[in-house]
């Protein structure tokens, strides 16, 4: 049996794009939230974490309201840039982004909070700029936690189903990610196809987790402990 591999490539593309933006935005957010105190901080924190406790259908509904052809962002993007989000792979990437952002944000915040502030303070007394301290002290020391968050986000992005189905729909070859391929193969009674994708996504998950465990041990040995 020849299997169309496009769901694999599409899932990897969706998860990679979503993880890239999750990486940038969660680091900026975690950095901002760990250094600033302001009115409404707890509320903003809860808002970032909200997708963790909401059913994916609620997130999908919210994204359709926002990015649908009649939604405020959807109509604006269509009118000014001719870009359509719903029923495209970009919609799937946005759905993945929203569900994986809180996972990454939690990991990065925990990683930043774990860093001993004396390391940053001693660097400050040496006249080093805040940006250089972030690049050379904070980020490298938080990297194991950040990487764990990245992997979780990537895995969550690959596995995203509910919100993706609502926003991107099921268009074979265009928005058919692995979880959608499994669901619709099962619905159509194509058990072999469903089993094939179940094995692929499980193997992918296992490979990712094994690599992270190996890498983390190696990093801990290299960094050592004072």
């Amino acid at each position, binding site marked *: 049996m020849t299997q169309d591999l496009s769901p694999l490539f599409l899932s990897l593309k969706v998860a990679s794009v979503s993880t890239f933006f999750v990486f940038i935005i969660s680091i900026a957010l975690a950095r901002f939230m760990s250094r600033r105190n302001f009115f409404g901080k707890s509320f903003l924190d809860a808002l970032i974490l909200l997708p963790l406790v909401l059913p994916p259908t609620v997130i999908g509904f919210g994204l359709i309201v926002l990015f649908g052809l009649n939604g405020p962002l959807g109509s604006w993007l269509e009118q000014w840039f001719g870009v359509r989000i719903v029923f495209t792979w970009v919609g799937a990437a946005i759905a993945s982004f929203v569900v994986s952002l809180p996972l990454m944000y939690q990991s990065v915040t925990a990683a930043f909070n774990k860093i*001993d502030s*004396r*390391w940053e*303070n*001693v*660097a*400050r*007394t*040496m*006249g*080093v*700029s805040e940006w250089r301290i972030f690049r*050379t*002290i904070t980020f*490298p*020391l938080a990297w194991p936690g950040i990487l764990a968050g990245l992997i979780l986000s990537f895995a969550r992005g690959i596995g995203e189903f509910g919100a993706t189905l609502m926003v991107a729909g099921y268009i074979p070859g265009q928005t058919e990610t692995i979880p959608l391929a499994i669901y619709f193969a099962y619905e159509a009674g194509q058990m072999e196809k469903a089993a094939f994708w179940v094995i692929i996504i499980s193997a992918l998950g296992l490979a990712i987790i094994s690599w992270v465990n190996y890498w983390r041990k190696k990093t801990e040995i*290299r*960094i*050592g*402990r*004072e």
Partner: protein
Amino acid sequence: MLHVDFRKQLEHFELVVDFQLDNEILALVGSSGSGKTTLLNCIAGIVHPDAGSISLNGRNFFQEGNKPLKIQRRKVGYLFQDYALFPHLSVEQNILYSRPPKSDMAHITAVTKVLGITDLLPKYPHQISGGEKQRVALTRALAAKPDLLLLDEPFSALDDDTRERCQEELLRIHEIWNIPIIFVTHRQADAQKLADRVIRVEKGQMTEQLISEASL
């Protein structure tokens, strides 16, 4: 000349500080939680006083009502209690951390030689002993050419022999660089051996003592 005159409310008492220091070695003694580390942190700029002023050689670090001088611009070397070496950087990278690219290495080479840590340069902090960490941290603080050196219990984690050696090195450093040094200690002997002046801090209140009187 260092001028320190400030107040800061801590959880259980108010820290009231008022002293001046030439290029001398000052020991701060007193029981745990009496405000000694907070005093060092205020001078370094890690925390800010509620009122008063701090200045070094005419440069205002803190002046009530004005924006405090940034830590980066104070030129204060700070040796934390357990040294706070960057664990992911080698000894050499730790020492060179503050060095701008293409700057003159002569000063750092001189400090490295004085403190005898040339052999440690390729090692990582977890591969060296407590005494070696102390010397590396001191070299790192001096590499940034500070105008003032703050040491928070620098000898507390060292055995007797290493403590003795590190104290000799500190005296030598002071002789060569001739900058004010403030160190916090719990040990009467440390204060008597190293300090030109001793100030006791108890529940935020300071009293200057004769060196011979310095005891816990």
